[in-house]
């Protein structure tokens, strides 16, 4: 029996009179990779932000028993006035009061792992989008979170840079990290997920193993949603425009 690391009970979140999340129940096991998909505006980001207490919640509870949570954003959000290394080591040194030399060593090891060792002294503005996002991931890792949240971390990237970031995340999954990933990259979701959650209208409409979900969605809404990502109909018609 896997160990439960995060439990969300009846989570409700409203903006004004609009209910974005309507009684979400979700529990995550240690080492599990959960991918959240759903139409734009269905509340995927809101869900992650609530989990990470960037938003107040209106009802329900989020139990993480003190497990640390790290988050990576779509727009990287590195600190522009700090070097790559300082971006990464700021929180471990200033918040966690860990030993400087030890933190630096760890940061450099992580940078090496994502292929950016030579960028340690660069500033964010000198990096490409894909490099920035890999740094942002390393920054999140360096505070040693037990749960990692990713909010469409490749959505702002040029296509040729998407892969380098996804590879880092696949590597993390392989290491047995607990991750909740919001993404529009369906092939990647299929490859990385232990479980897929389909969010729509403030509810979890469907959830299951990635293979089941992507190949045989049970609900109409999930089917409709997945159709958007497929060009099969177009190809069937043959001629094109």
């Amino acid at each position, binding site marked *: 029996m896997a160990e439960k690391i995060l439990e969300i009970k009846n989570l409700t979140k409203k903006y004004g009179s609009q209910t974005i999340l309507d009684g979400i129940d979700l529990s995550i096991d240690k080492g599990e990779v959960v991918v959240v998909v759903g139409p734009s505006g269905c509340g995927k980001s809101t869900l992650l932000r609530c989990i990470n207490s*960037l938003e107040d919640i209106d009802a329900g509870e989020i139990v993480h028993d003190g497990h640390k949570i790290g988050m990576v954003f779509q727009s990287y*959000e590195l600190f522009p006035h700090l070097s790559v290394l300082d971006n990464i080591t700021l929180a471990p040194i200033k918040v966690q009061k860990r030993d400087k030399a030890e933190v630096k060593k760890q940061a450099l090891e992580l940078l090496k792992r994502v292929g950016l060792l030579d960028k340690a002294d660069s500033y964010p503005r000198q990096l490409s989008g894909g490099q920035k996002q890999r740094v942002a991931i390393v920054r999140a890792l360096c505070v040693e979170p037990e749960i990692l949240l990713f909010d469409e971390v490749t959505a702002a990237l040029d296509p040729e840079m998407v892969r380098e970031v996804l590879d880092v995340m696949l590597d993390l999954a392989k290491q047995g990290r607990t991750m909740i990933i919001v993404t529009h990259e369906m092939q990647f979701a299929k490859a990385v997920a232990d479980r897929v959650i389909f969010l729509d209208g403030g509810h979890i409409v469907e959830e299951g193993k990635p293979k089941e979900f992507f190949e045989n969605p049970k609900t109409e809404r999930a089917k409709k949603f997945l159709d958007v990502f497929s060009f099969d109909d177009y190809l069937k018609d043959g001629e094109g425009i």
Partner: protein
Amino acid sequence: MLDLGLEVLFKGSNMLRLLQGLWVAVKISLISIAVSMPLGVVVGSLMTVKNKFIKLILRIYLETIRIMPQLVLLFIVYFGSTRALGWNLSGEVASIIVFVLWGAAEMGDLVRGALISIPKHQYESSKALGLSKVQTYIYIIIPQTVRRLVPLSINLITRMIKTTSLVLMIGVVEMLKVAQQIIEANRMVSPNASFGVFLVVFILYFLVCWPISMLARHLEKRWV
């Protein structure tokens, strides 16, 4: 040769008087700057708070000061307030009051602009890394605000220094006033002196303001 009437500057202590006049202008500027910059930081920070009443009051203050020409402000404070309140204000003190009011308003607007230009996500990614509110300000927000602010405030400082030339209108004897006195006194012997004297005034202002603008440009390049 072109006669600029420069010889009048070497008569008696004229050059020295001109430099003393420059010192008066610089002194008024320095005191006003030293007081208005920190005040501006307070005003600007208060302008970003949620309280609508505080915001409205500061908005009115800022707009009034900006709409009024500095000369009018000087007249109001120097002549107006002495009449209305019956106190005795020296020209220098009146000038400093006006420049502090003006500098704090302009600086406040710069600070407000710098603060709101920091994206919301910077606060959030900082929070997501576990930084407290105070730590977020110390390590993330204030350093970025200062970097944006320094070149802008240096520009404001040079504007303040240049504008101090207005104080001659309320009888403060600063450089421009001395220049006029020298020209006036030598009207008969050196009718061309106005060219030379104002040229020297121009050069002196340039020598004070130019290094400051260079510094602003340098910092802008380094930090943006």
